[in-house]
């Protein structure tokens, strides 16, 4: 890639992504089993619209769209930061135990303690954070390195995965309730969930912008960053906790939505380069666009069935990702 090409791409993407974001948001608000025109949306927001439409927009679609935006943004930011911290393009929130930790907590809550199932988002969030911390502590031996963290992550993920499967086999009759959460989706998510996640999501996205500089410096490698006067271990720890917070808050509400954290930052990196000043904001907006769009498709195209977003994202995104890799001769 030449510098002219890179700069041109950055320019295009900075124009295209905000436009796409607005288009997809309105598409998601208007489209569904009940179609609502843009004019009607205007009425709902600024005048008195039809009460049924008002109910659909305000009570159902709007919180779901906002949750989709936050989930997509958080997952993509988390993946972008982790790929830098781990110096590994295959890093995603799963690698620091967010999926397995949140997954296990969710299964325990829904299968073993169903009377507390309303606490699922909080349980999943705490499960994700505790697992990330445990992986970091296990990888510590007079310092950490990306490889140590990845290996500790693989081991912990395998262990928690086995416990999850064990619980599901023993309590197979209760598994039904947890399956949609495991597949990832926004079905039935409303203001309650939004109120829970919004403060954490917004704060962590804001914090992620403060991570741009340390993330850029860690790209130089541990030694070079240390030689430039950086406290590498402290920065890596804080970035991992931030990534875990970002992904944890997303999966706590949306379940195990995979793919976004891995592929969105990867694609954006190919397009705009390694600099987090561009990579992070573009990833956040693209993640939001992707999740909101996929959720709209998942809930409306296959009516009356509603597909889990996680499944749809993989079906839509994987071929696109493969084509991109092929085109760039990476694969």
């Amino acid at each position, binding site marked *: 890639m030449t510098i002219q090409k*890179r700069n041109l791409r950055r320019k295009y993407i900075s124009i295209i992504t905000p436009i796409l974001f607005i288009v997809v948001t309105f598409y998601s608000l208007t489209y569904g089993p009940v179609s609502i025109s843009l004019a009607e949306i205007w009425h709902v927001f600024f005048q008195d619209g039809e009460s049924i439409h008002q109910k659909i927009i305000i009570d159902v679609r709007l919180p779901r769209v906002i949750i989709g935006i936050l989930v997509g943004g958080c997952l993509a930011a988390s993946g972008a930061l982790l790929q830098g911290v781990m110096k590994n393009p295959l890093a995603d929130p799963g690698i620091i135990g967010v999926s397995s930790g949140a997954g296990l907590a969710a299964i325990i809550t829904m299968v073993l303690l169903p009377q507390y199932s309303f606490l699922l988002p909080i349980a999943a969030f705490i499960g994700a954070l505790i697992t990330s911390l445990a992986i970091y502590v296990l990888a510590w031996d007079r310092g950490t390195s990306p490889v140590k963290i990845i290996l500790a992550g693989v081991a912990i993920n395998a262990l928690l995965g086995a416990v999850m499967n064990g619980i599901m086999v023993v309590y197979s009759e209760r598994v039904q309730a947890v399956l949609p959460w495991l597949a990832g989706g926004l079905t039935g998510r409303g203001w309650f969930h939004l109120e829970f996640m919004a403060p954490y999501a917004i704060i962590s996205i804001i914090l992620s912008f403060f991570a741009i*500089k340390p993330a850029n*410096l860690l790209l130089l490698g*541990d*030694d070079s960053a240390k*030689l430039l*006067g950086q406290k590498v271990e402290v920065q890596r720890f804080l970035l991992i906790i931030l990534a875990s917070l970002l992904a944890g808050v997303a999966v706590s509400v949306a379940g195990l939505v995979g793919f976004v954290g891995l592929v969105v930052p990867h694609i954006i990196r190919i397009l705009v380069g390694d600099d987090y*000043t561009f990579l992070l904001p573009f990833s956040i907006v693209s993640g939001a666009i992707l999740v909101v769009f996929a959720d709209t498709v998942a809930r409306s195209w296959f009516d009356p069935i509603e597909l889990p977003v996680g499944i749809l994202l993989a079906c839509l995104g994987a071929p696109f990702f493969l084509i991109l890799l092929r085109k760039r001769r990476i694969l």
Partner: protein
Amino acid sequence: MKAIQTKGISLKIDKFQLDNISLSIPSRKITSIVGPNGSGKSTLLKIISRLVTANDGTVYVQNKNAKNYKTKEFAKTIAMLPQSKDMLPNVTVRELISFGREPYKHFLSNRLNEEDEEIIDAAMKMTKTTKHENRLFYSLSGGEQQKVRIAMALAQKTDILLLDEPTTFLDIAHQYDLMELLQQINEKYNMTIIMVLHELQQAAAYSHYMIAMKHGNIIECGVPEKLLSTKFLHDVYEIDARILFEDGFPLIIPKTRRKQNDYCNEHN
């Protein structure tokens, strides 16, 4: 003044051991650390640059205990090009060199001020990389990439520059180009340059002072002309060879077990 002094540096990692290293490295000179593979040259450099912590002993940087430097203060005193070719981000040459200004920036601030820009310009001019400033790092050749890394270290504006095998992987023309550049940097900025080198002839030709290591110990130190001898090659590298100086440039001629004539006769 001594740029670096070490007193009783010891480090043990598995079977490898640095054993009670005490040395002085002169200020404003070029010093080469030579010795066979596994002699502890790179480890010593890493201890000096605080990338590795010794089990025992003290390093003094400009007469101050290295441990007493604050992280950023240390980065304003010593710059280093590590041996490991870390996968650097694929940013432009100018963007990469500007990382060298990091020790001078405030926490989280990403802005470069006018002085920073001037220093970056000067570093590029010195290393003759100005013409590549808007090219992406990985579109450059190995030799040019190495110059850019040196420019990044120069942008740190330190008194001391450490280099770990800077000429490895470069062809002979780029090797000499780089050594000439280091010599110019030393002369222009009065910078103390300390480098680990494999190529003994290069080390002798471009250094004011040499340190020879073997099995984690310092074997000999001194100016190249006095240091290099048949005995030196035997003691340090365990080879039999003669040394001739041609215009101050050493030629090492190995005494091969089989003479060239024998080889020719066999193949005729």
